[in-house]
Structures are given as structure tokens and as C-alpha cells.
């Protein structure tokens, strides 16, 4: 299968501070890959670098066969990359529905109304609260909103930055279940950044292990998940 996203020698820095060193990774068309690592390993930076946001980067990023490194964030997004950022990026003073409408900002087609129903179908709770100020939502609901907002773009690829962060286990399960559904029903590829390695490995087909800005190991999730040293370091048993 061909890769929808591929990086070669991707490095990134904040000002003079080098954070990523020559990252090679790939997300297969319709697949889910996960990027695991400890705090400060460079997971969020990787996602930012892919969108050319807030970092200085070098190396090659290919999306859907075309080079996107060096393009403006807005243009990268418009090509079909939905980024669910760290901290969820909620527009707190806008209503839930306005948040979703922003997700469809770049679209001019007539399907937008149907997509509202589509995401409300995944997350009925958002529909109940659609006129509420987004800032009043709970953490889990805001995470759902962030995913929905990215889906409104009709992305080919979703970048997910720790969707489990700060959420109750049950809510995490619900969200990951829906992510799987979205992947299976719509064929949206995903790159998932997680600290919660267990749940990420269960969802993803491929895994990359990031340590201080370098990929130190990668392979099918099942292989990575059963590796003794990985289990000790990241899975806690």
C-alpha cells in the first residue's frame, strides 16, 4: 500500500533549539500510525513540523505524493490534513456549532450541512450542546469537538495530538472507539501522538518510538507492543 504521508530527514527547531533530528516516518493510505514517546521527546513538535507551524524545519514531507514542507500552514490544511492540536484548540467564546462551521471554513461545496449530521452522529452530545459556548464544555466534550472540527474539513489525514490527555478512562475508550469507526467507515488515515501507549498500540497498525527527537524503533504495533524493553519503558509492566 502506498503512503499518504511520508517524511524524510525531517528536522525541526524552536529558534536555536534543535528538537527533532532527521525523522523518517510514514502513514499508509487508510492506515493508522502512532508516535509514542515520553514527555519532551518531540511528539507534538513532529505534528507541528508536518503542518509547518511554530517551528523551523528542514527535510522532506510528502503528502498524497506532493511535497508540502515549506508550504504555509493554511495551505497544508487545505490539502486535507486535519490537525487536532495539543490542548484541543477550542474557540472557547464561540458556540459549538460555530466551532464546527469554522472546521468547514475552507469548503465551498454543498455537503457541509450533511457533514454536520455526520459528526453529530458520531458525537450526539455535541448536537445537544450545539448552541452552547464551547468553553463551557467538559474536557471530553471539547476533545470530541476538536475531532469533529477537524472532520468538518473532510480530511484525508487526521493528526491527533494526545486525544486521551486529561480524560477519564471511559471517555478515552469512547473517543478511541469512534476514531476506529471513522477510520474504518471513511478511510481517513491517522497519525496519533500518545503517551498512553497501550490504547494507542491497540488502535494503530504501525508504531514509532520517539526519544529525544529521534526515532529509535518502529514496526507493526503488535511487534512493538510485545517488545520487552518497550513494555518496560512505556507500558509500565
Amino acid at each position, binding site marked *: 500500500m502506498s503512503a499518504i504521508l511520508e517524511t524524510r530527514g525531517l528536522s525541526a527547531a524552536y529558534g536555536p533549539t534543535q528538537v527533532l533530528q532527521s525523522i523518517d516516518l510514514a502513514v499508509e493510505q487508510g492506515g493508522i500510525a502512532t508516535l509514542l514517546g515520553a514527555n519532551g521527546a518531540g511528539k507534538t513538535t513532529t505534528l507541528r513540523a508536518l*503542518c509547518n*507551524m*511554530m517551528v523551523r524545519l528542514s527535510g522532506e514531507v510528502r503528502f498524497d505524493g506532493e511535497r508540502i514542507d515549506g508550504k504555509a*500552514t*493554511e495551505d497544508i*490544511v*487545505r490539502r486535507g490534513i486535519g*490537525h487536532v*492540536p495539543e490542548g484541543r*484548540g*477550542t*474557540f*472557547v*467564546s*464561540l458556540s459549538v456549532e*460555530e466551532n464546527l*462551521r*469554522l*472546521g468547514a*471554513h*475552507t469548503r465551498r461545496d454543498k455537503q457541509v450541512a450533511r457533514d454536520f449530521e455526520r459528526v453529530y452522529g458520531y458525537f450526539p452530545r455535541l448536537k445537544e450542546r450545539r448552541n452552547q459556548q464551547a468553553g463551557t464544555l467538559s474536557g471530553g466534550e471539547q476533545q470530541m469537538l476538536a475531532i469533529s*472540527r*477537524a472532520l*468538518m*474539513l473532510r480530511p484525508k489525514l487526521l493528526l491527533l495530538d494526545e486525544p486521551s490527555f486529561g480524560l477519564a478512562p471511559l471517555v478515552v475508550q469512547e473517543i478511541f472507539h469512534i476514531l476506529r469507526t471513522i477510520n474504518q467507515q471513511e478511510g481517513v488515515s491517522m497519525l496519533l501522538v500518545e503517551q498512553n501507549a497501550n490504547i494507542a498500540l491497540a488502535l494503530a497498525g504501525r508504531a514509532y518510538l520517539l526519544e529525544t527527537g529521534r526515532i529509535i524503533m518502529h514496526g507493526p504495533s503488535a511487534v512493538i507492543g510485545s517488545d520487552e524493553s518497550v513494555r518496560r519503558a512505556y507500558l509500565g509492566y
Partner: protein
Amino acid sequence: MQAFLHQMLSGFATGGIYASIALALVMIYQTTHHVNFAQGEMATFSTYLAWQMIELGLPYWLAFLLTLLFAFILGAAIERIIVRPFYKAPVLSVVAVFIGLLLIINSLSGALFTYTIKPFASPFPSDAWYGSAYLSAHEVGMIFVTLVVLALVFAFFRYTPLGLAMRAVAENPVSSRLVGVRVGWMLALGWGLAGLIGAVAGTMTAPVVYLDPNMMFGVLLYGFAGALLGGIDNAWGAVLGGFIVGILQNLAGAYVVGTELMVTVALGIIVGILVIKPSGLFGRTIVTRV
């Protein structure tokens, strides 16, 4: 009583002008946390252009519309060319740049149109039926025009995708980028709109105070006062604040200090707000950095 009512209504009319300027200031402040000290000069310059077009024989309202268009382009161009390089600069640099801008536009007005005070005709006939003992025809027209503009701006932000995108940028530029909003253009658009609203205020003010390069200084101060009163990060609070300071100004002028200290009253209001409630009536509390 009648005199009091007259002062109130007249204050409401001037308040509309202040509300417009306050709104323009807040629009720029919300997106970039810049206080546009050149807002008044931009308005003055646009008003001169309207004057020139009317002198050349264009019908008033055509000149008015062309002026708004020009003011929009001027605002957007200033953002793109002059302000943009300073987004990451320290506050001091930014303020200095705005003051520089103020000086340049002010001197441009003076150089092109001379420093002689010019009368500027009101588009509203002075014997119009809607003039009364309480309000002159121009004041009524001024209220009408500013209210229409404010309503249009409100509708733009509330009901159009572009307006929504601009609100999004004001709140969270990073997130806005991630949904594909072209943040840079939204900022330029905000400046354009601010310039346009300022031009409305300028053309409506000129018949009252006469046209000269410094005519908007006082108005700008009241705009600041209104914006601070409402809360400088709250657009509709700022509009309300503009109306309130307009009425305050008229009452103070009529009953307290006389008309000679108009600008000083604005200073008083500004300092008063900063001492008593710096976040304004409707603004978020400013987080104090030590």
C-alpha cells in the same frame, strides 16, 4: 428639562461617533493587541479625500461610498506593509511605529490639503423635517448613519463565514490556521474594516468640528475612553462605552466644566477608568504581570 434632554440626545449623537472609533480600535486590539494610535489620522485623511471628491463635483453619497472603499484599502495596506513586520516586536517598538504612522498621515493631510480649516457640508439638509428643538438634522442623520454602520458590522460578524473567521482569529490564531483560515488576510481585513468605520466617523464629524488635519485628536481620545470603559477586548462593550462617554461629555460640557475642557474630560475619564476598573465594564480582567 428640555435642555437636559437636548444634551442627552446630542450626546447620543456624538456618542455614535465615539462608538464607531471605539469599535475600530477594539477590532484591531482584539486580533493583535495593538492600540492603533493612527486610527484618528486615517479617518481624517479619508475625510479629506471625501472633501476633495465633493469639491470636484461628485454627489455626496457617491463620494462617501468611494471614501469608504478607499479607507478600507488604506487600512488593509497599512497592515500589510507597515504593521506586519512588527508583530513579534516588543510593545515599545509597536507603539513607536504607530506614532510614526500618525505623524506621517497627519503631515500628509497637511501637505496635500493645507492646514487651513475647511468647512465640510452635511449631507442632511438643515431644514429637514426630522430636525427639531432637541436635535439638529445633521445630528439625527449622524445617529442614523452610525447606527446603520454598527448594525451592518454586527451582522457581518454574526452571520457571515468571513465574520466568523475573523472572530476565530481574534480568539485563537493558531487554531484558526489549523482549520485553514488565512490569518494574515483576516488581519488585513480587520484593519480595512477599522479604516472604513473610522472614515464613517470622520465624514460624520467633519461638518460639526470643521475639517483640519488635527480634527480627530479629540475624537480619538473619546474613542479610547469609550473602548476602555466598555473593556478594550469587548467590541460591543466598547460601542456602548462610546455612547456613554458621548453623553458624559455633553453633560460635563453643559453643566460642569464648560466646553473648553473637552479633551481634558476625556483624559479624566481615561485615567478614572484605569484607576477604578482597568478592565472596563464588560472586559475580561487584565491579568497583572507583577
